[in-house]
């Protein structure tokens, strides 16, 4: 019994780990029934694995049996791996006992498709209902929407889950067709749109009626695998942008492809996952969501891919030197946000602090801006007078010379003698 549950957990956690979403934020559930669990608005990462990724939720598959044969997936039908399936009670017990010991913020439940979509969705629904209704559990639940499941099942699941998600898998339809001929983006879009429409319906009702049950309060998210197929960064981010806009997604996740198959259509086994590219895509995502950038400013036909050696914000600034230098003491908040080396918190502090007097370099440093980077783009009260206007490329060289990328293991300019 003991060994069997250990084995199941190992198989089904291992198969679920390629889903990167682990966020537990945005939940609004309160512990009003003297039960177990209470959501934390900002979410909590309870630990981090040795690859540096956060562990917030117990992320497992209900089963890794699957009728599909998607090339990029470890649980594909043709893959020779051990198969297992949890019972509903096993998942409930694990979740409750892990939660009670403060190991986790909640449950992330996904599944391979066994028999058909509805059969699978019903099982997932059984788990969440049991947790919420029988165990008085108010912790976080992230549930996968199974594409093709009936509207009734999805709607019911939404009453108990905090977040629901469906993965786009590949950034473009062509890429998906190549690796998973049985699937298409339409199958993902339909349930995403359905849940989105339900969320807005419930929100609208809430304005009129006091007691409306919550429906997916933490919203929806999706994930794209990058580096498995030859899309450009522009393709990826334009798709992300469209999905943010059309379905009010809370997050789009970018998952660097970790080779798991010998198929010639994809990077071979042993290829390093594209970690730096993944990082640049997330930086672009943040610029879109928190810094007021339009995706077209960062990626366009002239620049279809992100720079590898510098981050996208610096890259934009260097291409658009006509906007700089920015005067810290008079510029608009929106423009201060666009200065490389200044983040959201620092920008807010600057705008508050300058009401009390013009700011100097030492004050800016104390506020916490990355001065060595920002100094090329700003003027403040005691900025040194500069005779020469530097070109963007020169500034890039200055910054690269004094900073070291954590991703570049060996300095490419350094020659090796022996």
């Amino acid at each position: 019994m003991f060994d069997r549950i250990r084995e199941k957990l190992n198989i089904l956690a291992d198969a679920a780990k390629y889903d990167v979403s682990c966020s537990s934020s945005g939940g609004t559930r309160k512990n009003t029934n003297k039960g177990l669990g209470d959501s934390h608005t900002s979410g909590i990462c309870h630990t981090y694995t040795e690859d540096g990724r956060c562990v917030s939720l117990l992320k497992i598959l209900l089963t890794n049996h699957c009728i599909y044969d998607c090339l990029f997936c470890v649980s594909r039908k043709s893959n020779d791996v051990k198969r297992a399936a949890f019972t509903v009670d096993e998942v409930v017990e694990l979740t409750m006992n892990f939660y009670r010991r403060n190991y986790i913020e909640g449950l992330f439940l996904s599944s391979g498709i066994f028999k058909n979509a509805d059969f699978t969705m019903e099982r997932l629904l059984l788990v969440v209902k049991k947790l919420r209704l029988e165990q008085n559990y108010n912790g976080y639940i992230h549930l996968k929407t199974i594409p093709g499941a009936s509207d009734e099942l999805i709607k019911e699941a939404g009453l108990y889950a905090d977040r629901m998600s469906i993965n786009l898998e590949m950034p473009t339809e062509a890429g998906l067709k190549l690796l998973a001929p049985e699937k298409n983006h339409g199958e993902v879009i339909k349930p995403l749109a359905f849940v989105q429409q339900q969320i807005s319906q419930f929100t609208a009702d809430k304005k009129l009626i006091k007691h409306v049950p919550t429906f997916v309060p933490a919203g929806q998210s999706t994930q794209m695998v990058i580096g498995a197929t030859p899309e450009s960064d522009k393709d990826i981010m334009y798709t992300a942008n469209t999905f943010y806009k059309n379905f009010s997604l809370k997050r789009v996740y970018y998952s660097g492809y970790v080779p798991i198959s010998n198929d010639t259509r994809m990077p071979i086994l042993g290829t390093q996952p594209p970690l730096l590219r993944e990082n640049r895509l997330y930086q672009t995502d943040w610029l879109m969501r928190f810094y007021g950038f339009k995706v077209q400013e960062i990626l366009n036909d002239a620049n279809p891919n992100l720079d590898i050696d510098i981050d996208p914000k610096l890259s934009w600034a260097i291409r658009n030197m006509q906007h700089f230098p920015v005067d810290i003491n008079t510029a608009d908040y929106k423009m201060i946000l666009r200065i490389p080396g200044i983040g959201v918190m620092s920008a807010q502090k600057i705008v508050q602090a300058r009401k009390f007097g013009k700011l100097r370099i030492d004050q800016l440093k104390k506020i916490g801006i990355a001065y060595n980077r920002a100094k090329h783009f700003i003027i403040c009260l005691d900025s040194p007078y500069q005779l020469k206007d530097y070109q963007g490329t020169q500034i890039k060289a200055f910054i690269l010379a004094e900073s070291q990328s954590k991703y570049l293991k060996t300095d490419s300019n350094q020659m090796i003698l022996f």
Partner: protein
Amino acid sequence: MIYIFDGTFQGLLTAVFEWFERKPGKVVLKSTPIFQPEAFVESFTVSTNAEKADRVWAGLQKKFKKDWQRKYYCSFLSEIPEAYNHLFQFTVYIFQNQLGAESNYGNPHVIALAKYAKSVEREKHRIEAFIRFQKTGDGIFYANIDPDFNVLPLISNHFKNRYADQPWVIYDLKRKYGLHYNLTSVEEITISFSNGAGKQNLAPVLMDESEALYATLWKDYFKSANIVARKNTKLHLQHVPKRYWKYLTEKVPI
């Protein structure tokens, strides 16, 4: 001139009261444990007075909103000697200026408080994340901690709301006091450990029979969730500094 106070929150506020009554000019505030007499500097020992402290606190509440009241209290909980002096100077600065003076991030005391508060809030958040309860034989969920700052007052509500249906104890080994939730309210407790006990995690004999099973499953899960091809030790250590490992079930060897 040096003001010496007893290290309590009320003592700090009383010191501010005394300063405004005397207006002795420039003053540095130090707490009794770290105070060392200096030959050429005068010193004055503040005697803590609840009434005076309340008046100062009431005044501060009129000066800034909840977010800054919290920053103020958090800075105090940092227990850092320099923080006390910054708090003192900050309070004087706030009373001597117009409403809204706390958002002057060009002021050294404002920026210092913002930094102390940030460190304390970070520690509080980490403790909320890294506490690992062990279920004891009598059904109490028990956890030891030794945080860098005195965060127990800040985490009490979080755990009370979250674990409303289970009795729990969180014990600060460094400051020798803890919190006990008895299904209705949270109380402060002190435990007198017999020799050596309390230094480490619970002895197996005291634990519930299911404890070993779930601890093992959690360790297994932690291993399975890792993607070896993405190994990044630097990032791992940045998020989970080694000083917390001794209390993390997944990091403690069996």
